[in-house]
């Protein structure tokens, strides 16, 4: 798997620009039947992008194929496991991948991804500093608890097998989008404001709370709550020691035995069902799921907690086997993805794009104001498919981008003691 593809060199020495230009020229001159070699070449190229249902949306693929001279095929993995398995076992079956930060540790030194040079990515200068330097726009250092963006943004060199905490010119990938998660709340069923993660384990809500079923999200959520309650103290709750894991799991087992948890959800739909049906009143949740509950006419809020949000991000990366013209195209496609249109599309689901500037020009003022700036909606806010999500006057829970992203308590994580944690998580599920 580590060896590079040794297929015949295609458009060897030609620079990307010239190739793309000639491609465009060919497209412009397509009235003439004369065979345009490069145009043909570029038309024959197909970039396979494998992601999940939140990034590989048919509408985006359609737009990409409209805008670009080569073909883009989007393939949606049914879940993260399948996607990572595919990357691990058949890396050559895809060209571009996008994955969440909890899996990035798996790829260090495995050789099936390739670095992206800063110069190849057009929007690096416009990217939010969270990714470029690990800071908030204020210059303040962002939380390093959990798998923070800066932990997997740079390679130490072009052929490096490890990530660098210091900026280099070799990017692990292109940050796609990110968000600040908090607890989903049913205010109508609780009747008072919720402002601390501690409430997740409040006996008042026994039998009415749910957690995400997994060590990357569920455990950080639980750790936020345990720490807020003062039950367990952590050095780094995003990267626990064995003792901290033991304490965490033992506490959680106590809660579970008392019937505190209603359910552990594994997918988006379950979390929506749980909340919308009133099975639970408080749970780990994703922003679009909260929106989905609200569009069903059920009250649901998603305000920040005083201990901060749980942050996460998605990285888009080129596979190692890409070379020559195909690599040029893949990188062109990645650049396109963050050039605004797709970012705006995804932002309408409640996620943030890493280049807000580009997105802004593809959103209405109302949309950008609502999603990014914490302004009250001046008119109805629509989801990407044209369905009304919020009426005029509504303000996004938690406010503006940096009100939310500027207050991260923990990042989704893959701990160093992952092996031990998964083993203890099994004990928790079996208890």
């Amino acid at each position: 798997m580590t060896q590079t593809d040794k297929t015949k060199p295609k458009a060897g020495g030609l620079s990307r620009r010239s190739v793309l230009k000639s491609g465009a020229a060919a497209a412009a001159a397509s009235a003439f039947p004369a065979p345009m070699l490069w145009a043909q070449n570029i038309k024959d190229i197909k970039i396979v992008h494998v992601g999940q249902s939140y990034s590989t949306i048919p509408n985006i693929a359609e737009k990409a194929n409209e805008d670009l001279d080569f073909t883009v095929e989007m393939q949606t993995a049914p879940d993260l496991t399948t996607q990572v398995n595919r990357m691990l076992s058949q890396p050559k079956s895809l060209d571009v991948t996008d994955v969440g930060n909890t899996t990035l540790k798996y790829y260090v030194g495995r050789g099936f991804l390739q670095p992206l040079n800063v110069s190849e990515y057009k929007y690096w200068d416009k990217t939010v500093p969270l990714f470029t330097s690990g800071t908030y726009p204020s210059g303040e250092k962002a939380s390093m608890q959990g798998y923070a963006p800066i932990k997997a943004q740079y390679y130490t060199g072009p052929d490096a097998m490890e990530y660098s905490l210091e900026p280099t010119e070799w990017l692990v990938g292109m940050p796609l989008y990110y968000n600040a998660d908090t607890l989903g709340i049913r205010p109508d069923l609780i009747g008072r404001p919720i402002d601390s993660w501690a409430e997740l384990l409040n006996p008042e809500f026994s039998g009415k709370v749910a957690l995400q079923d997994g060590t990357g999200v569920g455990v950080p959520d639980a750790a936020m709550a345990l720490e807020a309650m003062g039950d367990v103290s952590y050095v780094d709750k995003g990267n626990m020691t064995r003792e901290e894991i033991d304490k965490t799991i033992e506490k959680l087992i106590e809660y579970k035995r008392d019937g505190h948890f209603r359910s552990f959800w594994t997918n988006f739909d379950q979390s929506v069902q749980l909340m919308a049906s009133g099975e639970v009143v408080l749970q780990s949740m994703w922003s679009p799921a909260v929106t989905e509950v609200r569009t069903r006419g059920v009250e649901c809020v998603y305000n920040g907690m005083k201990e901060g949000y749980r942050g996460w991000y998605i990285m888009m990366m080129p596979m190692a086997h890409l070379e020559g013209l195909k690599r040029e195209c893949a990188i062109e496609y990645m650049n396109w993805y963050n050039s605004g249109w797709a970012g705006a599309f995804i932002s309408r689901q409640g996620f943030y794009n890493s280049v807000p500037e580009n997105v802004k020009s593809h959103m209405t003022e109302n949309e950008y104001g609502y999603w990014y700036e914490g302004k009250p909606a001046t008119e109805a806010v629509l989801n990407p498919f044209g369905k009304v999500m919020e009426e005029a006057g509504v303000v996004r829970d938690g406010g503006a981008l940096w009100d939310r992203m500027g207050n991260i308590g923990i990042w989704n994580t893959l701990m160093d003691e992952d092996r031990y944690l998964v083993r203890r998580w099994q004990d928790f599920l079996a208890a």
Partner: protein
Amino acid sequence: MTVSPKVASWLQVAPMAFVFTAMVLIPLGIIFVVSFLDYNFAQVFPEIYMGSWQDALYSRLTVDLYLTVFKFLLITLTITFAIGFSLAYFLVFHVRSNGMRLALLAAAAIPFWTPGPIRMVSWVPLLGKEGLVNQALLGLGLIDAPLDWLLYSQFAVVLAYINLLTLAMLGPITHSMAKIPRSLIQAAQDQGASEWQIIREVILPLCKPGIAIGTIFICTAVLGDFFIVKIMSGGQTNTPANAIATELAAFQYPPAAAKSVMLLVVVVILVSVLLRFVDIRKELQR
């Protein structure tokens, strides 16, 4: 023909033998080997590590996992047997027309043509706190507050198993029972046996092969299931197959492999015990 019968049989069975060797036996061997290797972060290292087996063999977790799954298995077997046997008796001895019998069996099979994940989603509008069942019970004044144990509970898991597997018991028992000659029943009646005695002394023993086949189906389905138990218990119940799925999802192959081999051994022991009661090949060829 120059080919001897033995060679002809070998040629005919070769494609199947190939598929099973390549797709079942070799993977099995590899899983076995992998279970002894070291691992971390989605990687397996070619170094011997016995930890996966120690954990699989000696931990409290294993005991808990198997206790849970055997509890499910026993309850499911008991109920599906009770329903399956009664209804097989009904179909064979009460339903008079052959067409009606087939129609009823087919009717019981139709719901299974809807994809599994969708079937699972459909329990929510039915059993949830605001689901049809709770609304009906509330409407009838039978309960004051919605029952929350209808969904995301062990009850829900067993209910889904029964829903899914009753047919697996009903089918083979009906097959066995239909082969009992009517004259046998009449002979027993002539000897003065009551309906209940006939069932216990004549029909039940003669249905043993069907019961054994049904039991094999259900054992393997329940022991191998990770999907239903996860969805229906709301992820709150862990079984051996589920533990394997969790570890596969965390890319921790060696412990998953060790647990898989262990589960396989358990399944094989169960099935080979059951196979003592029935020669599947003979039974089917009758």
